[in-house]
């Protein structure tokens, strides 16, 4: 189960007595932007549904409230862990009111959720966001009529431009309990009543919960009433299945249709559409059609990848890294520092900082000169793509391929993010619906997706080995992923879940948003990475001084020398690789540069390194997210598989006499 609080993004909730304001809404409608406007706290905001995977909280600047941002919910029946989190937040027994953030141009859809939330009996405010897009599409919304019909304050906002902020603050100060009440017919009402009675009296929002339970699978009661006693759960399951037996169609459909009928009535009264609109964004519309076209779509995909390669691989990993490494570090920073520290009399202490495995000469230099520019560049590119709205289209294009490995289009986000940082990506696997998918995605991330730092080093190296090498490398890694994914999908029980996603309109990314996202992501990465770089270097240093390194190298040499035909010294890179894959890859790069490895050896070692266990931070997260048993199996499998695949690769390359 997802943690409600994650050390990564959330701070503590300080005063439990004050009333909470919970932001609820469908995915990708700007809850997070509203959250940061209200609290002044930064949140990663994107044009992709499902970016918020955990509950965030913060104090509202101009109100005496704690504001809680929740992951977007699609329907009211939860599909994935993050949606369960949202429902739990609504059902928690604190004093609270709800701010529903909805899409102004999709009034029907927004109101469906409003009617569901109205069942909670909690004070409610409806914010119709993205009013500008609705206006562009020719919609005129009568908020007064909406407010009258629903019995709650309704405001229009454009959160990204802070339009409507004052009205919103004013509405939040005076939320009210909705006057609208949907009745679902005698049989459903009766069942709902029975569930309400079965629930403990102290339980908040019982009717809301009852209707969710009636709309969901029988197992849902277990999920939402986790710590309630077994008898209550059994009783509720009985009521639900007895109610269901009276209908030919699923109860959720019956409930939904009742709500839809109400929504239709309200919409008729408060929504008008002006004709002859929506010419504004013609070029974006065309792009929308092209980028999901069965043929042109792949061309667009190719162009995007090429752009990504040029930007991250060539510009950042090549020129910028060279500049940082050669000019800034080796030219400007290191000489005076080394000069200064070389006065330290004690050789071990001196070497700890500026020796072969020195904190400054190795650890910081790698981290800041090589890894930092690459990661930053990747995050710029990713944030840009994310804000345009291209990523869901990418999911549309790749869904078929992902199905082969037991995933579906939704997994595009963790996988693409994995090209930036596997650790971050492993956290984001929460947006996937089933445990099976999360395991497969975690496995593939650990096994084959090289993170940007590593990718940068690989690209730099392969440009020296030769263009064919990188192509072959990519093919080899892809093949491994397909094989392992395919087998995992076969072995793990369960079906590949269906794929449904919303395609938001293309939007032109705002520079400040892209930059601030990049800033926070990079900062997060640096904070995560640098300690491990330094720790890794320190471990190596002590292993070297005490002679453990030599012994470890001896231990690994049968594998490294015997199976992969690599120089013995390269086992040091693999040990480093366990601390950080990119770090290990950088070590291999060094060996290659010094002429200790030929092209073939470099190729084999890089491939193994990529398949090898991911960096230690990622391993920690795998254990945290997947649990010990699964994580242990995953990591051992990846380890064994990397050795096997490397051996086979080496064998065949030598047999076929391929050299680079």
């Amino acid at each position: 189960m997802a943690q409600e609080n994650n050390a990564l993004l959330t701070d503590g909730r300080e005063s439990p007595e004050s009333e909470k304001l919970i932001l609820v809404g469908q995915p990708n409608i700007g809850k997070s932007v509203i959250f940061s406007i209200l609290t002044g706290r930064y949140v990663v905001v994107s044009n992709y549904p499902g970016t918020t995977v955990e509950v965030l909280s913060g104090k509202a600047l101009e109100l005496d409230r704690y504001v809680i941002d929740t992951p977007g919910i699609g329907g009211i029946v939860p599909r994935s862990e993050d949606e369960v989190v949202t429902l739990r937040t609504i059902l928690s027994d604190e004093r609270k009111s709800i701010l529903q953030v909805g899409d102004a141009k999709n009034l029907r859809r927004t109101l469906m959720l409003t009617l569901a939330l109205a069942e909670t009996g909690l004070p409610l405010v409806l914010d119709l966001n993205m009013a500008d897009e609705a206006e562009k599409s020719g919609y005129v919304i009568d908020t007064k009529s909406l407010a009258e019909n629903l019995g709650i304050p309704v405001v229009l906002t454009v959160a990204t431009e802070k339009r409507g902020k004052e009205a919103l603050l004013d509405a939040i100060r005076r939320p009210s309990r909705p006057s609208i009440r949907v009745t679902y017919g005698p049989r459903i009402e009766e069942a709902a009543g029975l569930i309400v009675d079965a629930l403990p009296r102290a339980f908040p929002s019982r009717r809301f919960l009852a209707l969710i339970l009636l709309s969901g699978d029988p197992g849902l009661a277990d999920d939402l009433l986790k710590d309630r006693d077994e008898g209550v759960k059994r009783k509720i399951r009985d009521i639900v299945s007895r109610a269901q037996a009276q209908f030919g169609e699923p109860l959720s459909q019956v409930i939904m249709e009742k709500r839809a009928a109400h929504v239709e009535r309200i919409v008729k009264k408060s929504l008008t559409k002006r004709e002859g609109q929506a010419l504004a964004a013609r070029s974006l519309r065309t792009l929308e059609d092209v980028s999901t076209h069965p043929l042109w779509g792949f061309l667009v995909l190719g162009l995007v990848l090429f752009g990504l390669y040029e930007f991250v691989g060539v510009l950042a990993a090549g020129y910028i890294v060279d500049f940082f490494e050669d000019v800034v570090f080796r030219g400007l920073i290191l000489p005076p520092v080394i000069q200064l520290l070389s006065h330290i009399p004690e050789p071990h202490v001196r070497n700890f900082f500026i020796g072969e495995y020195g904190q400054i000469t190795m650890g910081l230099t790698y981290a800041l000169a090589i890894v930092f520019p690459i990661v930053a560049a990747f995050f710029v590119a990713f944030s840009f793509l994310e804000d345009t709205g291209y990523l869901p289209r990418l999911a549309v294009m790749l869904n078929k391929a992902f199905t082969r490995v037991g995933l579906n289009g939704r997994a595009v986000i963790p996988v693409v993010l994995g090209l930036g940082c596997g650790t971050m990506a492993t956290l984001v696997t929460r947006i996937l619906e089933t445990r099976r998918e999360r395991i497969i995605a975690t496995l593939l991330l650990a096994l084959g997706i090289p993170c940007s730092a590593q990718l940068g080093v690989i690209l730099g190296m392969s440009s020296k080995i030769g263009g064919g090498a990188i192509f072959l490398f990519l093919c080899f890694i892809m093949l491994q992923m397909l094989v392992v994914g395919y087998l995992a999908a076969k072995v793990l029980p369960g079906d590949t879940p269906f794929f449904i996603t919303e395609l938001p309109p293309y939007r032109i990314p705002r520079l400040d948003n892209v930059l601030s996202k990049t800033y926070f992501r990079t900062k997060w990465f640096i904070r995560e990475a640098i300690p491990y770089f330094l720790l890794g270097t320190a471990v190596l240093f002590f292993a070297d001084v005490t002679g453990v390194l030599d012994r470890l190298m001896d231990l690994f040499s049968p594998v490294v020398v015997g199976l992969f035909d690599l120089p013995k010294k390269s086992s040091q890179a693999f040990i480093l690789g366990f601390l950080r894959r990119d770090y290990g890859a950088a070590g291999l790069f060094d060996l290659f540069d010094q002429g200790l490895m030929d092209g073939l050896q470099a190729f084999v070692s890089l491939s193994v390194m990529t398949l090898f266990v991911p960096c230690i931070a990622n391993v920690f997260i795998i254990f945290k997210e997947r649990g010990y048993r699964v994580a242990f199996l995953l990591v051992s499998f990846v380890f064994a598989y990397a050795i096997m695949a490397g051996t086979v690769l080496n064998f065949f390359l030598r047999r076929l006499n391929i050299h680079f």
Partner: protein
Amino acid sequence: MENGKTPLTEEQEEALSEIWMRIENRKEIPQAGTSAPLRRMKHREGLDELIRDGYIKAEGDEVRLTETGFAEARRFIRNQRLSERLLSDVLNLEMEEAEKSACRYEHMLDTDAAESICILLGHPRTCPHGNLIPPGECCVSGETSLRPLVVPLSELEAGETGTVAYIGTTDHARLSYLSSLGVMTGRPIELIQKKPSYILKVDENTVAFDESVSREIFVRPSQRKRPIAGIGRRFRWGWR
């Protein structure tokens, strides 16, 4: 009904049918402007209403079909005779029995349903009594494959439109998610593409999903507006 007017009453439809048959009895081919004798008509009430609504004009002893009256009569006659064919040929009812049942639901058929029956029966030219059945669009285009009125989305071609009839799944989560995206009974939709994933426009939403989902969304396709050109016109009639 099709052109946005209030639908004819059963009485009116029967009256039109009577006029039509009287014209045929004179060995004439009914057209806009042809007339029939008014004497001893059974459906007087319907007749008066038809005159009031401008479907027919009374001229002395005769009634004359107007443009709209002709179109309505033709549509109804077609439905009536197709119903008779269906009941007698497919359900094997006796002629008399068939006529009685047909009387009941010929009034309920809409053009789409009539077209489906017509295709199912292989575009019959005459009713069981031997009277001509006015051909519909489907006869002209020679369509031979029957298309049910409600089909899974996967049966639609890219670019087609329709309305959602129902969602045929028992998976609550899927149902709830689809409806939250606006894919609900009664909503108009447009299928943008089928490959590599399905893309559907509903109101202002664009929704993408895979094929398994598309087989669970049942839609009532809008009438096909593209006659299949060039495929041999199997029928040549005196009517337009």
